């Protein structure tokens, strides 16, 4: 049975095969592509800073940060101030946070039969967009991170405004999402079940509807985008190792779909907030995972948890910003003089995003983008299923399968870049 899955920043077609009334195999198909990589070819490398945010309207900022990282990797001796690094990290955090609010209130809650609460999604995500715009001029689609740093200068007054935006967002979380000041330090999932708020209500509903164990996959996690908060590494169940290399990441074509498969050492891995939390060993998520595995509950919890963690971490980053440092340091040679290649990995809202660039005589010869949804939605064969495919196996109804599928926070436009 074929079902068109909508409102995932586009659509995907899922072909469900049933055996003994249980889902036996799901074929995932994306129907279009926008050829961004072709559009980039032959252009000035800096133009990629303008083109690439337009890969995606909800996580375009991650594409900007990945682009600037890949371009800077083409240099051997480029200097970036800590201030610029911190500012980039802050704006990326804000994008992740706005995404998570939208996913929870616009996508997840309606799947559980609740009326979509538009304003609960847009109010906090607008605050985060304002925070990005303070540095980048606007959100979405700024190109403010350039080779050598960031274009903006900020002042103590800007920091005050920024702190207020963060405080207001934290207040929103405590008034709505989880009505407890202890959520960000809570270590036991049982305590969250007893709290009030939209997240605990949803978790209780998952329990009541006996969906606690739904959506389990390989229990294999990976994250490449290290920064002052996220760690790079992989986690097989709870066994974490930090020695991973982009060299083993492989992208391959699938005949039936416009999306490409992504694997690490020939194996499929889950990316996203749950992966990051497993690798970062966030106590609350580890506890939920110990009790319920890599299920929808753990995925939902990890994503919401990340909102609180990143807000707290961002507060610290702002305090530590040294405004006497330069925002921008002129690169030693102009990028139009380069023959080089570079790559970068960042943690976007949905997981690891990889950009690779090859510059020949100062223009882009090749550009390659691997998006988080490609990792999670790799469409494998029956013998070797992708992460989200495996998570849907054994379910008896398509409604639950759609819920499991969307628990990965699927982004169609990214996938069909």
């Amino acid at each position, binding site marked *: 049975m074929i079902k*068109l899955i*909508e*409102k995932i*920043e*586009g*659509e995907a077609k899922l072909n469900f095969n049933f055996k003994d009334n249980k889902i036996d195999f799901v074929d995932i198909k994306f*129907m*279009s592509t*926008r050829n961004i990589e072709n*559009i980039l070819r032959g*252009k*000035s490398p*800096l*133009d990629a*800073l*303008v*083109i690439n945010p*337009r*890969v*995606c*309207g*909800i996580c*375009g900022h991650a594409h900007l940060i990945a682009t600037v990282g890949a371009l800077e990797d083409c240099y051997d001796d480029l200097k970036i101030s800590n201030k*610029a690094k911190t500012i980039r990290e802050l704006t990326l955090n804000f994008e992740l946070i706005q995404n998570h609010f*939208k996913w929870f209130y*616009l996508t997840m809650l*309606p799947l559980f039969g609740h009326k*979509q609460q*538009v*304003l609960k*999604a*847009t109010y906090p*995500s*607008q605050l985060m*967009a*304002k925070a990005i*715009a*303070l*540095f*980048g*001029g*606007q*959100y*979405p*689609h*700024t*190109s*403010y991170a*350039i080779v050598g*740093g*960031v*274009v*903006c*200068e900020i002042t103590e007054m800007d920091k005050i*405004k920024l702190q207020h935006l963060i405080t207001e967002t934290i207040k929103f979380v405590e008034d709505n999402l989880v009505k407890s000041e202890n959520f960000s330090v809570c270590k036991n999932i049982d305590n969250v079940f007893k709290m009030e708020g939209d997240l605990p209500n949803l978790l209780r509903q998952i329990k009541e509807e006996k969906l606690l164990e739904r959506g389990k996959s390989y229990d294999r996690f990976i994250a490449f985008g290290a920064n002052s908060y996220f760690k790079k590494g992989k986690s097989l169940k709870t066994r974490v190792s930090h020695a991973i290399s982009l060299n083993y990441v492989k992208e391959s074509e699938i005949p039936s779909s416009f999306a490409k498969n992504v694997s690490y050492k020939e194996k499929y891995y889950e990316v996203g907030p749950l992966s990051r939390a497993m690798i970062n060993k966030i106590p609350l998520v580890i506890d939920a995972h110990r009790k319920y595995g890599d299920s929808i509950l753990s995925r939902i919890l990890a994503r919401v948890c990340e909102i609180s963690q990143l807000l707290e971490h961002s507060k610290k980053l702002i305090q530590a910003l040294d405004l006497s440092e*330069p*925002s*921008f340091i*002129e690169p030693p040679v102009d990028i139009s003089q380069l023959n080089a290649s570079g790559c970068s990995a960042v943690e976007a809202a949905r997981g690891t995003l990889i950009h690779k660039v090859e510059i020949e005589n100062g223009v882009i010869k090749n550009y390659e983008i691997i998006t988080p949804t490609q990792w999670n939605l790799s469409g494998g064969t029956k013998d070797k299923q992708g992460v989200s495919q495996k998570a849907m196996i054994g379910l008896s109804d398509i409604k639950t399968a759609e819920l499991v599928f969307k628990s990965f926070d699927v982004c169609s*436009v990214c996938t069909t870049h």
Partner: protein
Amino acid sequence: MKKTRVLWLSAISCNGNTHSFLNYPYLEQFLSDFEFIYHPVLESDYSLEDITACGIACDILLIEGAISSEFQRADVAITQIIESYAQEVKKIVTVGTCATFGGIFGENDNVTGLHFDKEKRTDTFEHYFDKTISISGCPIHPEVLVNTLYAIKKELLISVDKFLRPKEYFAYTVHNGCTRNEYFEYKIDNHKFGTLEGCMFYEHGCQAPYTQGSCNKILWNEVNSKTRAGLPCMGCTEPTFPKQNLFHTKKNMGIPQNLPVGVAKRTYLTLAGITKAFTIERLEKKLFDD
């Protein structure tokens, strides 16, 4: 009052306009006056398959994204979906530069805007030209879109330019209201990235003096604009978007190739000559550092 029924139809897009629209500060008011029969993110009474299957009653058709006859939604060609709604609706609004001119995705073969392929008129939907309004921008400014939709609802006369953009928002240049204006007026060409001072027009590709839009009149996210932050205007509301070498000002004999809208080269040179008579210490040094 009856809610105005709106179909938000995505063609070849990044959903950037969808998310920019969600940044509109008074959405509660908007959603009490308008109803989406379909929207890419917000809940709607109809599924995409309902929309493509038959003509659901609708007042305004919004198109986001560039158009190609090969592109399909729910197995129906986008051109066919547009055709089936365009006839019946009161107005069509192209939301964003892709839907208006082709934009970034218009770089692909046979991909254009609804009525324009960059500056050139296309003929596929020519019969709907008079009922279309273009809101260009990559992405659109939420207030510009929302206010235009209200103007349609109120059946106000909307005065438009040759690209069908409401003059009230597109008669201005992006340069109007930029906090770096003085550096432009007195031709002080000392901009460095990462500073509050200087104008990006001379070296860093800023297109604001010849780009139509309200970016510095109605701020983005109510707080800032790209040029105020120090990022050159990329000309994203124009049919020529994206040009090449966006961070670099193209010059002929030291004079920027593209001059402010309506300014002749000779007069610009005369003006530039006169500004050499100024030495404005205030603008030569940091705004407020010691």
